[in-house]
């Protein structure tokens, strides 16, 4: 019985394969416009677009494969979306897509997906409001696309680079997004996977609303207002992502607002105004992350309960922790050990790699700062340093209850690194020139002073 079914399926497939045609579009080909080819095509056909510029918006309402040869450009009319897909199982590859409309409410996008099971690959999108918009659209693959938003608009007036609304089970890999509003905006969408995407120079690298069970691996977010803002969601997994150089007032590496049961592993959170921000977020595990060179490594509201930090590295942060409220129920160590703090000054007599004295995570000045933010104006002042010295000399001043009871003596080895950006070496030469100049001046003055 089974083999009978199978042969029927084979016959069907064979018939289908015979029927599938390739329609060519180009100046020298049968079809001069892509729309003409779409009209003539049957579901399952392939449309091959030769290089050239095609001034048209495409509405793909049957299951087709559209592939570019030699980098053709689909230049939209400037109204609505350049490519809108309403049929399932379409494939769009190797095209350049330009000039969408400018209506945020109308979802004017480079590519607007309203159907399921599509593949969008190797598309370069420019001058578009939204980049790739998934609207009620599931089981798609969106890979290796490059999205360049409209720089002439203010970031709030742009659309999302990859905008996902009410869409499940999609896969996003190796995309590049820049100059959009949010790099990847995900709302009411679950079970999506994001891997190796690169997002920079925009508002929020990742913006999340009410979307559970999503997985993020090996993505890179840099030079944004915030790396990731994850809100009202649960079971989010972040692994091996990097959140670098997200600076500005109220800027964050990763922000968690009303989230629960998230797993944050082996991420690199580097050079942000605030590295990790947690408000009203519960039961999440931060494990083996490196949080380094941030102005404030962590800002945690007391409303965040029962989170666990273990085996993370905290290195070179100006302040380790700002706690808003009196205490948090954060666990700073598990059986596997606590975290590595570069300012830990304890010892390890039994050489088990775990410090024998608890590590107070923030000093009295940093503790006061949490509830009196204005005190931060005294950051790095001798007065703040003398307060800390006084705290050590007179333990009666103890303020904070946050202790890592099993601090690690050595940093945890984590392989996540930040790939170097194209070097903008000018800063190096400027500093070198300035320094040599003042050094030369000084030496000349000394020489002259000692001359008879």
């Amino acid at each position, binding site marked *: 019985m089974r083999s009978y079914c199978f042969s029927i399926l084979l016959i069907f497939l064979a018939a289908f394969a015979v029927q599938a045609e390739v329609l060519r579009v180009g100046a020298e080909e049968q079809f001069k416009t892509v729309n003409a080819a779409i009209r003539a095509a049957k579901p399952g056909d392939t449309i091959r677009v030769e290089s050239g510029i095609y001034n048209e918006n495409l509405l793909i309402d049957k299951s087709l494969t559209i592939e570019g040869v030699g980098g053709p450009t689909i230049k939209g009319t400037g109204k609505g979306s350049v490519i809108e897909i309403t049929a399932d199982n379409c494939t769009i590859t190797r095209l350049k897509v330009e000039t969408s409309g400018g209506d945020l409410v109308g979802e004017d996008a480079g590519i607007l997906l309203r159907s399921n099971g599509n593949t969008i690959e190797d598309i370069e999108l420019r001058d578009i409001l939204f980049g790739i918009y998934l609207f009620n659209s599931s089981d798609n693959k969106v890979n290796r696309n490059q999205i360049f938003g409209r720089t002439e608009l203010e970031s709030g007036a742009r659309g999302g680079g990859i905008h996902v609304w009410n869409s499940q089970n999609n896969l996003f890999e190796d995309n590049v997004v820049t100059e959009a509003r949010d790099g990847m905006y995900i709302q009411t969408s679950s079970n999506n996977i994001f891997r190796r995407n690169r997002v920079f120079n925009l508002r929020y690298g990742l913006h999340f609303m009410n979307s559970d069970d999503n997985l993020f691996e090996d993505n890179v977010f840099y030079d944004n207002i915030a790396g990731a803002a994850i809100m009202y969601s649960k079971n989010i997994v972040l692994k091996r992502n*990097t959140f*670098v150089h997200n*600076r*500005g*007032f109220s*800027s964050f590496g990763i922000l968690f607002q009303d989230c629960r049961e998230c797993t944050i592993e082996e991420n*690199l959170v*580097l*050079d942000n*105004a605030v590295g990790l921000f947690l408000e009203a977020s519960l039961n999440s595990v931060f494990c083996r992350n*490196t949080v*380094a*060179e*941030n*102005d*404030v490594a962590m800002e945690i509201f007391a409303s965040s309960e029962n989170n666990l930090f273990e085996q993370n590295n905290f*290195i*070179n*942060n*100006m302040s380790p922790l700002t706690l808003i409220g009196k205490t948090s129920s954060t666990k700073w160590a598990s059986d596997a050990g606590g975290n590595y703090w570069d300012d830990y000054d304890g010892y390890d007599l039994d050489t088990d790699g775990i410090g024998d004295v608890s590590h107070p995570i923030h000093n009295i000045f940093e503790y006061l700062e949490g509830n*009196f933010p*204005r*005190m*931060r*104006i*005294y*950051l*790095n*002042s*001798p*007065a*703040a340093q*003398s*307060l800390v010295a006084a705290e050590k000399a007179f333990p009666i001043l103890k303020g904070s209850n946050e202790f890592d009871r099993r601090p690690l003596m050595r940093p945890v080895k*984590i392989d*996540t*690194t*930040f*790939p*170097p950006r194209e*070097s*903008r*070496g000018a*800063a*190096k030469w*400027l*500093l*070198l020139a*300035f*320094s040599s100049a*003042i*050094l*030369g*001046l*000084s*030496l000349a*003055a*000394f020489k002259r*002073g*000692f001359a008879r």
Partner: protein
Amino acid sequence: MELSTILPIARQELTVAIRNKWTTIFALVFGSLVLAISYFGTMTAGEIGFQGFNRTTASLLSLVLYLIPLVALMMGTQSFLRNEGEDEMLFSQPVSRSEILAGKLLGLFAAMTTATFIGFGIGGIVIATQTDAEGFLGYPAFVMLSLILSLVFLSLSMLAAIASRRRTKAFGIALLLWFFFVILYDLLVLGGSLLLKERSANYFIFASLFGNPVDIVRVAGLLSMKGGEVFGAAGAALLKFLGGYGQAIGALIVGLLVWTVAPILVSFRLLRDQDI
């Protein structure tokens, strides 16, 4: 006041200061500390993409805030106190007393600049070779701020020396000034702000920044090296209070100039009316 009379006095003062072994010792100490900070601060640069800017910035700032006022006060007090032979020679010349003070101040400032430039020069070269220096575009501004800080404390030392006239008293006052501005003042302001309500406490803290040149340099230094966000919400409030980033830097520099000029003017007056 004639520049043509001030400059030779300044040049003479600079030569004396440079030949004075204390200037060389200070230059060496400051230079090796800056070298150590910039070298060890950025030693791990590049390992996982980090550069060590925070550690370096914070340490450099602390070094400048502690050491420069102290050295400027000592150097200035030493020079502005009566030195028998030199004074007899200077005051018998056809130059005004203010010109003598201005010349000496200028010369001492040049000496401090010479001494600190060695350290800042070496430090900058180390940072530039070890990192991509992207996070250190504010370094020249920071060097300039350190210079102004030394000028402020030189003029304060001038005031201390001229007002007290006696050696022990002058050095005592200088040390007290150092302790007051570097440590005590901030503790008093911090304590005072805890007694006030939220809103007025903010204004109180922002206004009292201008009462202490060390604070002005610290805040302006962090603003130029790290940006206003380093102060978090307080930084945003400060910038709003002062009217924006540019205005804030401007206001802080004006504050420093007032701190420089005021002691100079008072010293001019005091010395004019003094019997020598």
